[in-house]
Each structure stands twice: as C-alpha cells, then as structure tokens.
C-alpha cells in the first residue's frame, strides 16, 4: 500500500480527490481558469491513469506542458502534443460523446447539480452579473460525466434553486434529465469542506465524505439546502505521499491551484 501523506492542504486534497475520478480510458478536456482540474488531470496521468487522454487547453491532444504557470487555455499548454485539435473536431467529438468528461465550477450550485455562472437576481437587470455560462452551457446538455468543484462551500454557493441554469445538471431531479434525452450528468461535487454525490433515484445531492477537521454540522450549515446524509460518512480518502510530492514538485510547484482560493467573485 502507498504511504499516506500527513502534511497536505485542502487545495491538495481537492486535486487528489478529483484526480482519482479520472480513468485511464477517459478523454478529458479542460476549460478556462481551471487550475484544480488541470492539476488533477496531470496527476491522474502521472499515477493511476497513464492512458488518460488530455486535450490540453481544449486544443493539444495528449500534451505534456511544463509545470502549471498561467492560463489553462494558453498555447503553452499544447506543448509536445500529438495534434492541435481543430475546434470543429473538438465540437464533433464533444457532441458525439467521444470526449465524455468535463469539470465545472460556478457561482451557484443547487441540490440537483444545476450550476449558475450567469447572474444573481433577474437576468435582464441582475444584482450581480457573473461572467457567463461559457462551456458549461454546452457540456451540461451534451451527455458529459461532470465533476463540479468549488473552493467556496457556503450557503451563497450551495442554494436551493439556482437563479439561472447556466449548466444543465439533473434539472428538477428524478428522471427529469433523462426525459429530456440527456445522458450522464453531474457525478461528484468536490469542495473545500467535503465530497458529495447524487442519490441515484432522486438525483438529490448527498454527502459522501468529509475533509479532515470538518464536521457534518458545519457542512450542513454552509449548505443552503438540506443535504442527504448517508448512514456512514467516511473521511475523504487522504492523498499519498507520492501524490503530494508530484503535485508540489512536478505538476504545480508555483501553487497555481491556490489561486482558486482568492476572494474574487467566481469565474467560469
């Protein structure tokens, strides 16, 4: 068994938890301002999922960029790729289901995994105009296995009902998504406090594991709707020493992943 790390931070736990969701047969595309997903993809590929295909910066097929620096769509991300994927190819593969995995973040997330990154308040005259739906407006409707991450697990982020559905999650729950002909959907929500999944029948968000030092009460207090609580709540699986070493020394020595914890309003 791999040695368990003792010294790690919440950003590292989030990256490792997300990395472990990726499988060797997956083809994963990353979006804009996605340091945590990109670090997770690189980590998965360096550990349990060597066969994973990463379309880096939505362009560079199987690229091997330098350690994380700036922008997650930058041309520097395409380094040593086998192909610059033309965007019309990318869209056909995304539509057709060849690229099946995508990670999403947003300003509001509701109990059925719908995500809002468009407005707080009314669309026409919003209280807060957010950046916009961008790729999530596509990916939620295109049968993706969606992993949601957020670094702000608060009642402002986790709301009973999103003000605007930028990304189609399980819609009104139950078989609503299926009835609309949409396959897959949100798989997991990884936050700074815990990991959540969706109860298979109701598609209602459900606590899955708690990060070290976080209590059930705290999570419930920071969530704007009633979470489903399973009988057993294990701690989130800790990283291994090797995962933390790779992350700190090889993949993200500059700590770009920590940028996502800045107190700026949410971005796409």
């Amino acid at each position, binding site marked *: 068994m791999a040695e368990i790390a003792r010294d790690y931070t919440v950003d590292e736990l989030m990256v490792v938890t997300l990395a472990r969701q990726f499988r060797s047969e997956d083809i994963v595309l990353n979006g804009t301002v996605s340091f945590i997903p990109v670090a997770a993809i690189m980590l998965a590929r360096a550990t349990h999922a060597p066969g994973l295909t990463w379309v880096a910066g939505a362009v560079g097929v199987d690229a091997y960029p330098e350690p994380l620096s700036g*922008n997650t769509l930058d*041309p*520097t991300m395409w380094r040593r790729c086998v192909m610059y994927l033309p965007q019309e190819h990318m869209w056909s593969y995304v539509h057709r289901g060849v690229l099946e995995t995508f990670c999403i973040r947003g300003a509001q997330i509701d109990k059925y995994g719908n995500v809002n990154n468009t407005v707080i308040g009314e669309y026409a005259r919003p209280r807060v105009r957010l950046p916009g*739906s961008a790729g999530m407006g596509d990916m939620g409707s295109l049968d993706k296995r969606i992993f949601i991450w957020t670094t702000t697990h608060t009642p402002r982020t986790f709301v009973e009902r999103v003000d605007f559905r930028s990304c189609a999650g399980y819609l009104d729950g139950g078989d609503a998504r299926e009835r*609309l002909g949409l396959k897959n959907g949100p798989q997991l929500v990884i936050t700074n406090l815990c990991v959540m999944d969706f109860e298979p029948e109701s598609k209602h968000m459900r606590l899955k594991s708690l990060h070290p030092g976080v209590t059930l009460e705290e999570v419930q207090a920071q969530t704007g709707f009633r979470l489903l609580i399973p009988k057993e709540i294990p701690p989130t699986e800790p990283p291994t020493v090797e995962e933390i070493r790779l992350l700190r020394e090889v993949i993200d020595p500059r700590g770009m992943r920590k940028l996502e914890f800045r107190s700026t309003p949410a971005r*796409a």
Partner: protein
Amino acid sequence: MAAKTADKVMTLTEAATLVRDGDTVALQGMGTQMSPLAFVRELIRAGKRDLTIVMIVGGIGLDWLIAAGCVRRVIAIIVNLDEFGMAHAFRRAVEAGEVVMEEYSEHQLLSRLLAGAYGLPFLVTRSGLGTDLLALHPETTRIIACPFTGQEVVACRALVPDVAILHAHRADRYGNVQFFPKPIWLDADVFPRAAKRVIVTVEEIVENEEIRRTPIHTGIPYFKVDAVVEVPYGAHPCSLYPFYAFDRALFQEYATASRTVEGTRAFLDRYVYGPTTHAEYLQRVGGAEMLLRIRKWE
C-alpha cells in the same frame, strides 16, 4: 469585394472608418490570446457608439470598449479577464442596464455564426438543452423536432456581423492573411466568413510572392478582406502565439484599476486616449523591457 490587385493597406484610423456607429462587430479574442487590441483602442479614440460586439469569449478589449461607452449590446458566451477575474466595466454596465448581454452557449453561438457564413437561415445543435439560456431569446434559439426521429434539437438563427476584426501574423497588401499555426480558435475561422466586411491587423505585411510560397498558412483569402493594417504587437496585452506572450503585468494593472469607475477611466486615459501613436502606447506599457519580457513564454 475589391479586386485582387487592390491595395488594401490602411492606417488604423482609416480602417476604423469602416466601422459605423450601430454596427454589429465580431471581435476576435480568446481570453488572453489573439485579439486586435490596437484596433480596439483606435475604435475608442474614434468615439464609436452603439456597437453590438460579438465575441466567443469576451475579454479585456470588450471591457475597454464598454468602459468607453462604445457598446450597447454584447453577444458572447462569457465575458471576463480570464485568470485575472471579472470584467468590471462589463459587470457594472449590465447591472446598471446600460449594456445588454445576449448570452449563448458556445456551440449555439458558433452555430449562429456558421449559419451566417453559409447563408443558411439556421443550423442546429444539442447545446443548451435544459438550460435557462433558451428562454432568453426565442427569436434566435428555439427547440425544434428532427423531422426523421422526433429528437429535440436547438435551432440557432443565422448571425451576420457587419464587420469582423482580427489580428493575424501576416498578410500581403491584397489581404491574403496568414496564421502560424492556422486558426485554432474558431473565431478567426468563422468571423471572416460570416461578416459582411473584414478588417485585419497583422504583425507584418509581406510580399504576395511570399504568400504564394506558403499557401498552406493562408486562413483568409483576399476576396473576403477589406482592410489590412500593419501593427506589430497589435494584440498586446494579449498574446500572439508563438510570437509573443500576453502581458501579465498590464492585465493585472487593468484588473485592479477597473474595480472602480475612476480607476478604469484613469487606465483608459493613460493607455488608450493618451498615446498618439502605437509606438507611444508600447512605450507607456513598458517599452523595450516589456517587449523583451513577452517574447518569453512561461
């Protein structure tokens, strides 16, 4: 469509006259990459009004245009400064009701532009099903059933911009525009085909003979181009891969300044209205030191 031997080389100021108040302007740009920002500064100085700006990913240039009062409507999938955070002028203007944001999913907007490029009344996608985006504009996106299977798809109405504005690596004086590598982001590929008029700023104007030696790099043919302007570093502070990287320092300066209306105004005064030439602009944003810095990608 001018003849193939028409000389289309102009100054920024001359080319800006091809953009009229009230026009729908398709503006290239992908976060911190490939945006005709020297031209955007010229549009601001020329005092254009009531523009509808179409960008796939709205960025710093759009925020400047909004701050300068040039814009009435935005058609985009997202507007921000990428890792530098919110586009505050955009946010403020939409929250105040001064600018309308017409938001689509990416493939909806691409489908609208492609339909425009093809002269088709609409094209279809599955993008956006189940979202609230569809309810925003039934006049341009609407659910229809496949006549063969009954499956529901989203019909996206053709969008034909009045002008497309791009920055590219090089062109000849007739408007044969080359990219290295060929357009990877679809705006450079679709905008010129969809728009009625096309303005291209380039790092360098080269001889027609050089174009004919390397036709594999040509992305836009002369018969679709109305103006060519030579502006080295014309995408600054955005990047033009592989020539130069984006200017982190200026992005950060704008991200900070634009948190307030006053800061935004001061930024525009200093960097947009102030410089009387492109060289003076480059000097103000860091001069030689900056030009050396952005040639390194990291």
